[in-house]
């Protein structure tokens, strides 16, 4: 059989496209099923993301020079990018939210980006590369933090005036009974759409990559002319992978800018 002759990483993968999202306990900490705080591969990759972000910005700001070197300019580009976004959407008042938006962007971007790393073939599932943001509970938590901040800050700053958010200024009085429920529903759907957008993008991208990889494997195993044809999905993977780099950045950007737009509502509820 040709399958046995191939090196292990070329053999058709037995695992389906969804197995890469499996959560594996690395250090089990399960208290009789009541509380489960096991250290899983998801936790491991969150730690990796936070550590690499810390390491990068520590290196970037270690020896500050007037004429920045390579790492420092990369750090400055990231800082300037988010600072400009915050300034453009919220103005000078938004500066207090900059650390939050920057942290959010860095975390989402690095989890998307590091999740694209290939796994080492033949290793146990616990050390496979893992995209934290492909799990809806992670993205939903992030979205709830953003929208929760909007609600808490808006209520503290404006008190009941924050409710003006649901009654936009300039709307005639007789339209308000119609507009207000729509505004309330659109406000309530914000965390859901924020979370599902990021989660679905990551999930779909990784599933497509795995499905294409499956095509290469099964075409190679088919032998003859079909093995030569396996180059076609291989080129496809390269294309999809490039698109995934764009999506990894774009979704982090969209998540951050939508947070900025929502925070702008907390700053000025009556549009």
């Amino acid at each position, binding site marked *: 059989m040709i399958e046995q002759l191939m090196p292990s990483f070329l053999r058709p993968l037995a695992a389906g496209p*969804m197995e890469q999202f499996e959560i594996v306990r690395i250090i089990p900490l399960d208290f009789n099923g009541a509380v489960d705080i096991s250290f899983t591969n998801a936790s491991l990759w969150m730690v990796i993301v936070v550590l690499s972000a810390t390491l990068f910005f520590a290196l970037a700001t270690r020896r500050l020079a007037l004429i920045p070197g390579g790492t420092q300019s990369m750090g400055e580009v990231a800082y300037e990018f988010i600072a400009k976004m915050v300034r453009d959407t919220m103005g000078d008042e938004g500066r207090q939210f900059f650390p939050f938006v920057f942290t959010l962007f860095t975390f989402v971007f690095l989890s998307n980006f590091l999740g694209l790393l290939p796994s080492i073939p033949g290793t146990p599932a616990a050390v496979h590369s893992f995209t934290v943001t492909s799990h809806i509970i992670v993205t939903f938590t992030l979205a709830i933090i953003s929208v929760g901040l909007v609600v808490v800050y808006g209520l503290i700053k404006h008190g009941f005036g924050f409710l003006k958010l649901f009654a936009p200024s300039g709307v005639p009085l007789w339209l308000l009974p119609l507009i207000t429920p729509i505004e309330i529903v659109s406000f309530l759907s914000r965390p859901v759409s924020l979370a*599902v957008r990021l989660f*679905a993008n990551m*999930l779909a991208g990784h599933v497509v990559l795995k499905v294409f990889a499956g095509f290469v494997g099964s075409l190679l195993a088919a032998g003859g002319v079909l093995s030569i044809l396996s180059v076609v999905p291989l080129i496809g993977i390269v294309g999809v992978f490039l698109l995934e780099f764009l999506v990894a950045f*774009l979704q982090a950007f*969209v998540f951050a*800018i939508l947070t900025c737009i929502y925070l702008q509502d907390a700053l000025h509820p009556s549009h």
Partner: protein
Amino acid sequence: MDAEAAKYIGAGLAVLPLFGVGLGLGIMFGNFLSGAFRNPSATAGLTGNFFIAFALTEATGLFALVIAFLILFS
């Protein structure tokens, strides 16, 4: 009809919104490019908004995909 078969048909039907997403993306890319070609100096200002619109439109298709996955795997 078998329940399993109905599940697969349902999952197939759930990704029909991709039709609209394809149309939307085509219109968006076309208009962005025609805008960019008519006034190349304005391209830089358009790109940011364009990518936000791209991500928002693409997300609609992915919502459909999530529903399809929910039907298939739950």
